[in-house]
């Protein structure tokens, strides 16, 4: 099967998950584990960078759905960034842009978090 990788790095007051490869029902548990760890560590400001994400299936989208409620309850957010047109289309089809903030660039998302903190 195609590979999928999640890379995690922490910034000042936010965490970034970089997704790489093919996110479907088989690889979704990897992302789940990573998000769960962030929640356990009480890191609720999460940016998911989709620059190297080549495909996302409905199961992959479901992962975000599973966590968003808990994250927002804790005054955090999951913001998405750097999507390819193809991946964006999948998000868009389901109406995700209504539910999630999607940015062209990771830095924009981070800035958004910073502003939120100052406010």
């Amino acid at each position, binding site marked *: 099967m195609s590979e999928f990788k999640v890379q995690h790095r922490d910034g000042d007051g936010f965490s970034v998950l970089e997704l790489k490869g093919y996110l479907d029902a088989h690889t979704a548990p990897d992302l789940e584990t990573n998000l769960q760890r962030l929640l356990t560590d009480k890191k609720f400001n999460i940016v998911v960078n989709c620059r190297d994400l080549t495909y996302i299936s409905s199961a992959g989208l479901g992962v975000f759905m*599973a966590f968003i409620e808990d994250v927002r309850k804790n005054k955090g957010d999951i913001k998405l960034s750097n999507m390819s047109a193809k991946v964006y289309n999948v998000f868009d089809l389901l109406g995700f842009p*209504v*539910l999630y903030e999607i940015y062209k660039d990771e830095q924009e998302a981070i800035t958004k978090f910073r502003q939120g903190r100052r406010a």
Partner: protein
Amino acid sequence: MSRLKRAIFLIVPLILLMAVFVFDVVRITVELGDSGFSLLRESAVIGAMVFLYFLLEGTGTKRPGAATKEIGRLLIIVVGTIVFIGLVQFLPGLGFSEAADTAVPQNSLTVFFSLTLSVAVAASSLVGLLTIKELVYHKRKKGTTRNFILYVTLLLLTSVFAMPMFGNDLAFLGTLGLVLSIIMIVVNSFRQNWIVFLSRREKIYCIIYSALLFAAFLALSLLLSNRTFLNKAVLFFSVPLERFVLINSMYGAVYFGMAFVTTLFHLPTAEIYERKQSELSSLHNLGRLITQVFDFKDLVNTVTKMTREVCDARSAWLELVREEKRGAAEHSEVVSRSNISEQEISAITSHPDFVLRQLVTDSRKALLIDEVGSDRRTRHIKELGFPIASLLSVPLVSHDRVIGILHATKSIEFGFDQDDTEVLTTFADQVTIAVENSRLIEQSLERERFRQELMVAQQMQKRLLPQRFPDNAAMEVAAISEPSLEVGGDYFDFVRLEHDRIGVVIGDVSGKGVSAAFYMAEVKGIFQSLSKITDSPRELLIRANQTLIESLERNAFISVLYAIFDVPKSRLTLARAGHCPMILISGEKKELIRPNGLGLGLTEGELFMTSTEERNISLKVGDLCLFYTDGITEARNAEGEEFGYERLVDLCLQIRKLPASGIQDRILSEIRAYCGKNGLNDDLTLVVVKWHGKKSEG
């Protein structure tokens, strides 16, 4: 031996001996001189002895492990013979008249007893020889047979040379034979291997028996070698027999004397030998169990029970590594225990100082703690107050991976020796195989159960799809749904509505398998009922979302497109909940109809309502509406490139003039050709509607 043979072996010597007796009675009264008669008589005696040998040879049990019994039998015979000799000694009226160097019986009664005594000692001598032969042959080595036959040959030769007819000329040969026989006696007396295989109890019996036999044979030898009544009697009966019996008695004395000493030395090791035996049989039993016990619980319980037996442990428990799905850590579970409580085990293993599991898992070798109380690795166990003084932990290793640990404990320090470790390690290997086997069987059963569940879901899903397509002259419909797994997440349905309207639903439940089939059933129910209540697709989606958000799991959602074809108004009204846009081909015009809308189950109420739109489209005759799931657009070719919307729309434009079923077939074959040998890896659903409009229009 057949009864006839036995009868012959019994009767022939009896006749021969009677003849000898008659001859002897005559001989003591009438001087016959050294005639051919004495040669004939000697032949008769030898003949009788040969027959006696074969008669006795047939009576031995020859069963392995019956050594002690054989010796016991011999003891009874020899002691019986000696008692008989003693009794005859005191009978009145018996005696020999000494003449020159030979003693001659005084009367025929003495002749009779000479004969019976001779036969009696000959018989015990032969039984002795046969018994020793069995013992010597117990574990044959190179030369065993040769040495024994050499002894028997020398014995016979010495006896033959003693015949009176050879006179004194060959006396030196007799002496030489005697000396050589004694040498062979000593050589053959070192064959005492059979003693090793006796149990402790048997060895004790053996010591008593061989001591008594030693004494009995020694007594016989002394009686025969001095000028006693017995000596005279046998000499009168047959000089060679006297030699034969004497040498054999000496052999008996030496052999059993040796046996006595050997057994005495082996007594301390008897227990070890017995334990080895029981270990072996335990291992053997477990080997059998592997093929017999399929029930996991039974198997592991037997394992701990046998662990205690194998090394005489006070308690034992078996823990196996439980495998979780990937990502999760492995941890052990105590699957069976013997003579130790669950609380005790958990007190030991949950203690922060408990390191045995880690040590054994890392080294993959057996770990022996001789002094639990003073060993820093196990001190905590002693402190907990359990009667565990020594502990042996053995890993179960399968394919280079520790799948579990077998623990055995004793209440004394240094309770386990080297053997215990080795035996338990071997035992653990067998346990590993048994456990793996049992797991495999369980797995295949589980898989079978799962397969049957899937079959049920698959059949259920098939019934959920419409069995009949709309039968309306205004529209021509073709539809197909192909799950990639046994149970997919795709769904389509038709609803017949009032005022000559027809509803088309197409959807995709996130996830696959049994849960997807259940959601699908729910969706079908919701659409079938709501479609009768509301005329607006948007309204229907909003209500469906409200219902579904309650029952869907948080990470599950459903994308749906709902379209109503209004025949009288030639109008299509549709709303989309996150589903793939509808393709509309009208003349040369191609269009993706994509009103805004969120997937069902993503968010509740307000946001869903505000973001979901409804579209109205006027239909013209010949218009083509294509509903599909992402299995079509996301079909990949060998390079991983998706089929995509553009290709699909262009294809539709190209084949728009075909009938609905033709369009469906063409799209499917194009998709298959595009995927090539990789094949489809997602569910794929297609609903084709060709608009013919009202009859009056056409």
